[in-house]
């Protein structure tokens, strides 16, 4: 800005100074100096001006100035007379030159002006404008000396309804989606009981205080590790990327919060940065975004495993309530004791039951045997030959003591005994007559 003001002051009597004062270029935008370099090399020696001090340059035919001096002077006068201005109009004839600069016309139906955006100024502009887009640009009016064209050197631009920011976000989203970074199945669940929480944010911002306050309230002994990074301004994307990369390499926490406190929409830029989003996506632990803006979604919100509207909400999502766990542990301890008691009682009941069943089974077995013995005894008795004798039958017993139940066992004259129920009778076979069918 001081350089610009200096140029404005220097514009007075600039024709002579431009020709003679080599220090003037210091006041000019270095890029103009670059653009004008061939011209200035070709600039004629200002010898004529010095030799004829009586007449001001260009006042007479003798002091005629070359076109280059005219254009250079016009450029300096214009730059001195016009501060940077916001200008609105419609974009046409947009060209991206191979040297990286953008060229286009800005018009409003009645008039138009040529505009240029140097490549180094483009990183502050979210995206290149589309043909026919209604934009507002911040530009310095100047002259392009090589052509004598008036042009606006644009350093900031936004389209109606944040069109450029939206366009830039859409382009980044399309690339991230193509790489699968927005897929819902990528979302990881948060650990219910994290050991240590990493927080990537500004060490001086409201976000870290909010996270610490909420986290401590829920879990007084919580461990928090801050990975500091600027969250707004031109350096924010680089710092956020570096902090995320450090967190990824350290891997000392099992969940992360990345965010900042509330702020204007312009401040969200870093969280819409593609490199930041990719660094966030490659964290090895689940991450909660907390960009502190209720309405606008940022790209980081879409890539994170969970989006929290504010840093406080992120802390609530990440940090469990200590009392809840204590209650759970008490209930588990109770459940464990009850379970063990139940198992022991169940085992005792089962043992008692088994003993009873065994005893009664044994009793039944004995009873069964006893009755079986009795039955067998009865049958045995019925079958006993002695019982038959009791009914008046007799058995013949040979001298060898064996029973002789058949006629063919006898020969005439054989002595034997007849055994009867009440005694024995000695006998002798008179004759033996076998039955015909025997």
């Amino acid at each position, binding site marked *: 800005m001081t350089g610009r003001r200096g140029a404005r002051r220097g514009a007075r009597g600039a024709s002579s100074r431009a020709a003679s004062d080599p220090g003037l270029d210091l006041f000019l935008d270095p890029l103009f100096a670059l653009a004008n370099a061939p011209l200035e090399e070709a600039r004629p020696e200002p010898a004529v001006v010095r030799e004829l001090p009586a007449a001001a340059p260009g006042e007479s035919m003798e002091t005629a100035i070359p076109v280059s001096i005219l254009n250079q002077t016009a450029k300096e006068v214009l730059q001195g007379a016009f501060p940077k201005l916001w200008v609105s109009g419609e974009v046409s004839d947009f060209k991206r030159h191979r040297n990286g600069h953008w060229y286009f016309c800005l018009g409003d139906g009645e008039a138009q002006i040529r505009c240029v955006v140097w490549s180094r100024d483009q990183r502050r502009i979210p995206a290149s404008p589309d043909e026919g887009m209604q934009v507002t640009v911040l530009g310095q009016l100047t002259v392009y000396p090589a052509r004598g064209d008036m042009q606006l050197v644009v350093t900031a631009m936004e389209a109606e309804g944040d069109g450029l920011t939206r366009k830039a976000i859409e382009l980044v989203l399309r690339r991230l989606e193509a790489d699968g970074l927005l897929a819902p199945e990528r979302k990881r669940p948060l*650990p*219910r*009981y*994290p*050991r*240590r929480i*990493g927080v990537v944010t500004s*060490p001086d911002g409201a976000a870290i*205080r909010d996270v*610490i306050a909420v986290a*401590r309230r829920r879990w*007084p*002994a*919580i*461990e*928090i*590790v*801050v*990975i*500091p990074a600027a969250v707004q301004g031109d350096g924010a994307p680089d710092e956020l990327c570096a902090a995320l990369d*450090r*967190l990824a*390499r*350290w*891997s*000392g*926490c*099992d969940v992360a919060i990345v965010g900042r406190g509330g702020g204007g929409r312009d401040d969200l830029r870093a969280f819409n940065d593609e490199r930041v989003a990719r660094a966030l996506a490659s964290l090895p*632990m689940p991450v909660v975004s907390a960009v502190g803006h209720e309405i606008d979604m940022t790209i980081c919100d879409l890539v994170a495993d969970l989006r929290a509207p504010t840093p406080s909400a992120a802390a609530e999502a990440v940090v469990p309530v*200590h009392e809840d*766990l204590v209650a*759970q*542990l008490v209930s*588990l*301890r109770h*459940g*464990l004791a*009850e*379970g*063990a008691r*139940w*198992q*022991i009682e*169940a*085992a005792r009941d089962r043992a008692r039951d088994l003993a009873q069943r065994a005893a009664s089974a044994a009793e039944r077995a004995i009873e069964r045997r006893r009755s079986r013995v009795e039955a067998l005894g009865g049958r045995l008795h019925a079958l006993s030959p002695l019982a038959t004798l009791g009914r008046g039958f007799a058995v013949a017993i040979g001298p060898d003591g064996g029973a002789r139940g058949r006629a063919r066992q006898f020969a005439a004259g054989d002595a034997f005994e007849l055994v009867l129920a009440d005694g024995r009778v000695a006998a002798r076979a008179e004759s033996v007559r076998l039955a015909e069918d025997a």
Partner: protein
Amino acid sequence: MTDPTEGANGGEGVEDQLRRLEAIVDELSGDGIELDAALRLFEEGVARLRAVTERLAGAEARVKQLSEEADGSFILEDFDE
């Protein structure tokens, strides 16, 4: 927990302990389990319960700031709240 830069994934987490404890209590509340198996489960449950409780008691409230040395090693410094 003695090494401040110790990885967060070392050992079984509270969550795993709680999940196993719940399973143990469920199993102990059911039928069809041998008594010696039940007693082993009970002992395991008590050990896990003690581990979780000790771990929670051992955690120290702190906020640190992660810095990186030139040689790529990490250090945790006290965060100026």
